[in-house]
């Protein structure tokens, strides 16, 4: 009896230990150590967010058309795509880097590349791919710039998007306008025309770079100098201040709702525009499918971001394809990266809602589907947010400093001066 009790205890200890160890080691092996070029078959693992929000259109094209086509032209290479929800990908990459368990390819948000590159997680593709300069020259410069860090490029653009002005016929009618507001002055006139009609002239859901930079750039302002060394004198320059001041004035007149300063209880932009609460918003090409499902009768009108002294300049979004430095299949992984830049890949993804990053493919996609034309035009001048590892901190600084300016407890000049000082500190420590 006693012996069997001991045996039971020993067994349970072993089971628990095994469980604990299994829990620590994770489960995403990247296959054998063989490299492409040898005869041994290679399995590439790729992490991405194509299926975010239960959208199977893009994962289907990838898994059923593009990957099989790549595998057919590259015998011996198998690509295993793992779809990860957008909200958890960054955390998964972080823990993967900490545990040394990363895939061979990642479809990364453009805002994360510099951050992970600075940590040494990514392979410098400009050193690893002999044809990098040819491939990169074919992409939009604004998208390519998001891959740069410390004199090297750590990825290539994969897909892109940008924000344009979206309005509705109902809003234009209410304001007595025949076309969407094309300039800052048009927007102010629209606000005046909408006064008392319970329609906000413009709505947006935050004061981060993604939200506020199109206004600053279009107003002729800048965030930093070209070499990313200083924000003081740029972010708090007179043109930047004037652009933000226009928004603050409209906000104080009640023409922009407090969704802008982070009221999570306000009507969202995607609901407010079709419901007639908001006259204009800035948004991206993904809205077409969202509205198609939720507001089938709504016919959005797309137009360039209103132009100020600096023209009509929007902000670049999208994803890059990167290779973690831990991969043991570098040749096979670079072959797939090369394939993502092909017309075949870019145009197939364009059909399911991802805008091409290769300029020639972008022109073809816009010709095939006129819906993309306003976005392609806007992209020609769109700029990326600061490509530094601390880009998420820049967002926090902007929204923390600007919120009091909109609420009226400080001036725009004071808010931007304080933000510029903090960003200066980040730039010197990068």
């Amino acid at each position: 009896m006693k012996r069997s009790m001991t045996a039971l205890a020993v067994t349970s200890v072993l089971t628990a230990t095994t469980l604990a160890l299994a829990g620590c080691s994770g489960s995403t092996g990247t296959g054998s150590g063989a490299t492409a070029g040898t005869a041994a078959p290679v399995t590439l693992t790729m992490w991405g967010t194509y299926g975010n929000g239960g959208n199977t259109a893009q994962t289907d094209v990838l898994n059923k058309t593009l990957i099989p086509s790549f595998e057919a032209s590259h015998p011996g290479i198998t690509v295993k795509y793992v779809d990860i929800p957008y909200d958890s990908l960054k955390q998964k990459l972080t823990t993967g880097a900490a545990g040394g368990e990363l895939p061979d390819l990642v479809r990364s948000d453009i805002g994360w590349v510099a951050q992970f590159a600075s940590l040494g997680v990514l392979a410098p593709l400009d050193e690893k791919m002999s044809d990098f300069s040819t491939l990169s020259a074919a992409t939009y410069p604004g998208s390519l710039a998001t891959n740069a860090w410390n004199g090297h490029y750590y990825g290539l653009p994969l897909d892109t998007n940008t924000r344009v002005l979206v309005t509705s016929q109902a809003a234009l009618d209410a304001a007595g306008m025949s076309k969407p507001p094309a300039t800052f002055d048009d927007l102010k006139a629209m606000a005046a025309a909408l006064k008392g009609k319970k329609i906000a002239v413009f709505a947006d859901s935050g004061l981060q770079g993604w939200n506020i930079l199109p206004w600053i750039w279009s107003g002729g302002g800048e965030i930093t100098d070209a070499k990313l060394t200083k924000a003081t004198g740029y972010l708090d320059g007179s043109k930047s201040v004037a652009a933000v001041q226009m928004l603050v004035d409209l906000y104080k007149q009640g023409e922009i709702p407090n969704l802008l300063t982070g009221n999570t209880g306000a009507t969202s932009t995607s609901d407010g525009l079709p419901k007639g609460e908001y006259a204009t918003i800035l948004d991206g090409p993904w809205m077409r499918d969202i509205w198609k499902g939720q507001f089938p009768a709504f016919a959005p009108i797309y137009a360039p971001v209103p132009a100020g002294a600096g023209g009509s300049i929007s902000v670049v979004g999208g994803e890059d394809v990167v290779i973690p430095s831990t991969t043991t299949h570098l040749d096979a992984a670079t072959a797939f990266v090369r394939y993502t830049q092909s017309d075949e890949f870019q145009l197939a993804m364009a059909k399911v809602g991802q805008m091409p990053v290769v300029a020639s493919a972008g022109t073809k996609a816009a010709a095939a589907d006129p819906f993309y034309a306003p976005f392609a035009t806007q992209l020609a001048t769109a700029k990326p947010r600061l490509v530094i590892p601390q880009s998420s901190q820049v967002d926090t600084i902007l929204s923390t400093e600007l919120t009091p300016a909109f609420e009226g407890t400080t001036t725009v000049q004071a808010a931007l001066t304080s933000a510029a000082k903090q960003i200066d500190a980040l730039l010197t420590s990068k």
Partner: protein
Amino acid sequence: MIDSTQPQVVRAAVSPVAARTTRRRRRAGRATPYLFLAPALVLFVGLIVYPMVRAFQMSFYDWKVLAGATSTFIGFDNYTRAMGDPVFWRGLANSGVYMALSVPPQIVLGLLIAMLLKAKSPSQPVYRVLFYLPVVTSWVVVSLLFKYLFADKGVINWALADVLHLGDGSTSWLSGRWTALIAICALGVWKGIGWSMMIFLAALQGVPESLEEAAVMDGANRWQRFRVVTLPAIRPALGFVVVMLVIGGFNVFTSVLLMTGGGPGGQTEVLLTYMYRQAFTNLDFGYGSAIAVILTVIVFLLSLAQMRLFRGGDEEER
């Protein structure tokens, strides 16, 4: 007590092989309880103690997340940085405000409901389940629910304006620091009452009826009976509930992250959302860990003080 000479007697009496087996059995017998403890201990050390020690270690480094990367030891820099960080202090204040506003109602209302549900009635199990239901519901689900309740065009504003005729219902609850904290506290109280109710119900079952009856005989009214008989009898349970709720109050996280995201402009950031942002958004694990360590020390000291307080009271009564 076993005589120490006994084993020798036994050994002399049996063959050497049998004696060895007996010794081994006895040794194995002594090890058995530890082997039974081991699975839980292995998991506890591996999943709780080790990460805690690691986080403590990280808080003294400029921690590099990459496996194999060298992190720089920076001593107390992360801690001094927190002392000079206004967002840290605002987060601490918000966590404190949440604790102060959400703990007392959970105790008072939890006890009140427990008193009401103590009486036996056919509907009693139904009410117990209903009050306990929020406790077992997912934080994510109820946080989103409360976000919609407190939205500009949500049920709360509608009820205030159209049902109760208090104001015009145009309050943007989630757009200001204090109104948003009220909404977050309301969720905490609603979700927490059931838990304290359950503990109090269990404690109330243990109040001797003879004492109650004696108090009635002495002419004590309801309030006097509650104050002199019930309250002292459930004192240990009360102490437990207070300590646990204060710890829980300082650990508020999910509801804030989902209802306001720390906004607007970081006004409703609490210590844990700020820690999470530093670690997982900015990948500054050293600073995030330092914030976690500071919070642990605060909660530990508070719990210690409370336990002293409740124990001290007991001794005085005795």
